[in-house]
Every structure is written in C-alpha cells, then in structure tokens.
C-alpha cells in the first residue's frame, strides 16, 4: 500500500476529527440507568414477596376451593390434626359444614356418618381393648 497515501489519510482524518467540538455532557446518559437500578434494587424484594404471596394464595384457594383465608386456616388445621381453642371450648358443638365438606377424604371414610366426635375417641379406646386379653390369657393357662 502507498505509504504517502496513508500518511495523507492520517493527517486528514486527524485534522477533521480533531476539529470537531465535542463536550462531555455533565449529566451522562447512563445516570438514568443508575436511578432505575436503584429503584429496582428497592422494589425487587417487595416484588418477590408479593409474587410469593400471590402464588401461595392461589394454591391455597385452588386446594380449598374458597377464596376466604379463614377457610384456608381451618383446612390446614384439620389436615394437620391441630386442635384449635374453639374446638376445645366447644367439644359438643358441631363443626361448620364447610370444613367437613372439603376435609381430608380419608378421615371422612374412616368416620361413620353422623358421628363426628368419634375419631377423637378412637385412639383412647383401642389401648383399653388390648389390655383386657392379658388376664384372659393367664386364665386360659391356669385352665390348661
């Protein structure tokens, strides 16, 4: 390549580009990005918490079939077997129909219809039945 041409090109390029009056903006264009990033840093935890709450709420509403959060709590207590103070204070009171409708199907199948207080009595009744055969076995040995 012709070096004189390249030298002339360099001179022309430098003279034309150096003649441009360029000023550095006092407020850079990326400063908007800075404030945006700060806003995102603040809003991100809130957005994630809101998204998690919405997700949990939608799952609970779908599982319980009700949008009422009180129903979700009751459902959760029943499925976990937690006795609430309300249940202890009023043992004879019939539970509200909504939890019994959507309660765990396994519990409903085990409990006879119409006797909703029986599932809590069953665990106490079974050990009594197991204790009674022991004297009976002893009596059989004595007989034999």
């Amino acid at each position, binding site marked *: *390549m*012709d070096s004189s*041409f*390249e030298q*002339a*090109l*360099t*001179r*022309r*390029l*430098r*003279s*034309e*580009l*150096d003649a*441009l009056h*360029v000023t*550095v*903006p006092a407020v*850079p*264009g*990326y400063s*908007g*990005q*800075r404030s945006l990033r700060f806003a995102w840093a603040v809003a991100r935890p809130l957005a994630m918490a809101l998204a998690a709450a919405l997700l949990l709420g939608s799952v609970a509403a779908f599982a319980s079939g009700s949008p009422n959060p009180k129903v979700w709590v009751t459902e959760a207590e029943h499925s976990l077997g937690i006795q609430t103070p309300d249940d202890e204070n009023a043992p004879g009171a019939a539970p509200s129909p909504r939890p019994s409708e959507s309660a765990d199907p396994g519990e409903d199948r085990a409990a006879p219809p119409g006797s909703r207080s029986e599932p809590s009595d069953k665990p106490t009744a079974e050990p009594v039945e197991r204790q009674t055969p022991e004297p009976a076995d002893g009596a059989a040995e004595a007989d034999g």
Partner: protein
Amino acid sequence: MVTEGAVTGILERAATPADVLPPLAQYTPGVQADFDRLYRASFVRVVRTLTGIVGSLEAAEDCAQEAFTRAYRAWPGWSGDVPAEAWLHRIAVNTAISYRRREQIRSLPSLIMRLGIPPQAPDPAQRAESGTLLPELRRLPPKQAAAIVLRYYHGYSNREVAAALGVSERTVGQRISDALAILRIRLGETA
C-alpha cells in the same frame, strides 16, 4: 488472540496529553466511581471515533450515549483482559453498526422511490464545510470505517485494532486493505 503486548500498546498509544487514561489496574469492574472516570476520560475519543463511522457529530453523540448506557450495564461483567477503553470502543463500534443498519432500513423507501433516477452530486458547499473525508468514510461499510478510524486516527496497530474490535488480525488487515482501495479511488491520490 489478545496478548499483553497488544493491551500495553493500546494503553500507551491512548495516553495522549489531552486525555491521559489511568492505568488498567485503576479500574475495578462494577465500581461506580471508576466508570464515571472512564466516561470522563474517553467520551470525547469515543465520539470522534463514532463520527468517523456514522458521519455526523449529532448521530455520534447519540450513539456514544447509547454505548455508554450499554457499557454501564455490562460494567460489572468487564473481565479486564482487554483495556477498558478498548472494551468501550468495541461496544461503541457495535452501537454505530446497529445505527447504520437502522438508518439503511429507514432510508429504504426513499431509495426505492429514487430507483432509476440518477444520483445527485453532493452539494459542494456542504462538502467543503464538513470536509471530504468524513462523508467518504460514512459511505464505507461500518466495520471498515471503524478499522480505518482506529488505525489511522488513534494510531493502533492491526493487532490492537483486532483486540479492540474482537476479531482476528487477518480480518482487520483485510478490512483496512479493502477500505484503503475504495478510498484511493474516491479521494484520489491526494487523500
């Protein structure tokens, strides 16, 4: 592809008395103050480089702002294997190439309307005002224009241009050779 010699050479050549660049080690990726210093140190050089590619100062300033915004977003991920200004030039050149593509798409309808009509000769007054070299650079493919500006304005070697643009030295040599051949025809021997 990017050697320490190329990196050092870019820094040495970039350190003109007008805008001395701080050493490579003084920039830390992701640090806000360091990016602000890089912005102040290299904005003028980046705008001049972009003017050689896009052809007008206004467009070059717009592209420079966009390039710095992109660079600011990528600043935490800057690895430091290429000098900060060379890394910045790569982003700026890519921004200018995107600008030229958009400009070509925008001018497509008027180009179709002008089909068959002989092109108008450039206005001599405008040519005299803006010089003759910058409009000719603007007519080059943007990648060739970028190589010419980095090579003959900033004084980078082919290896350093390759480091700044992220291509091989052979590619840079081919681009410069093609661009010089075109410019010699259009400008004549006087340049």
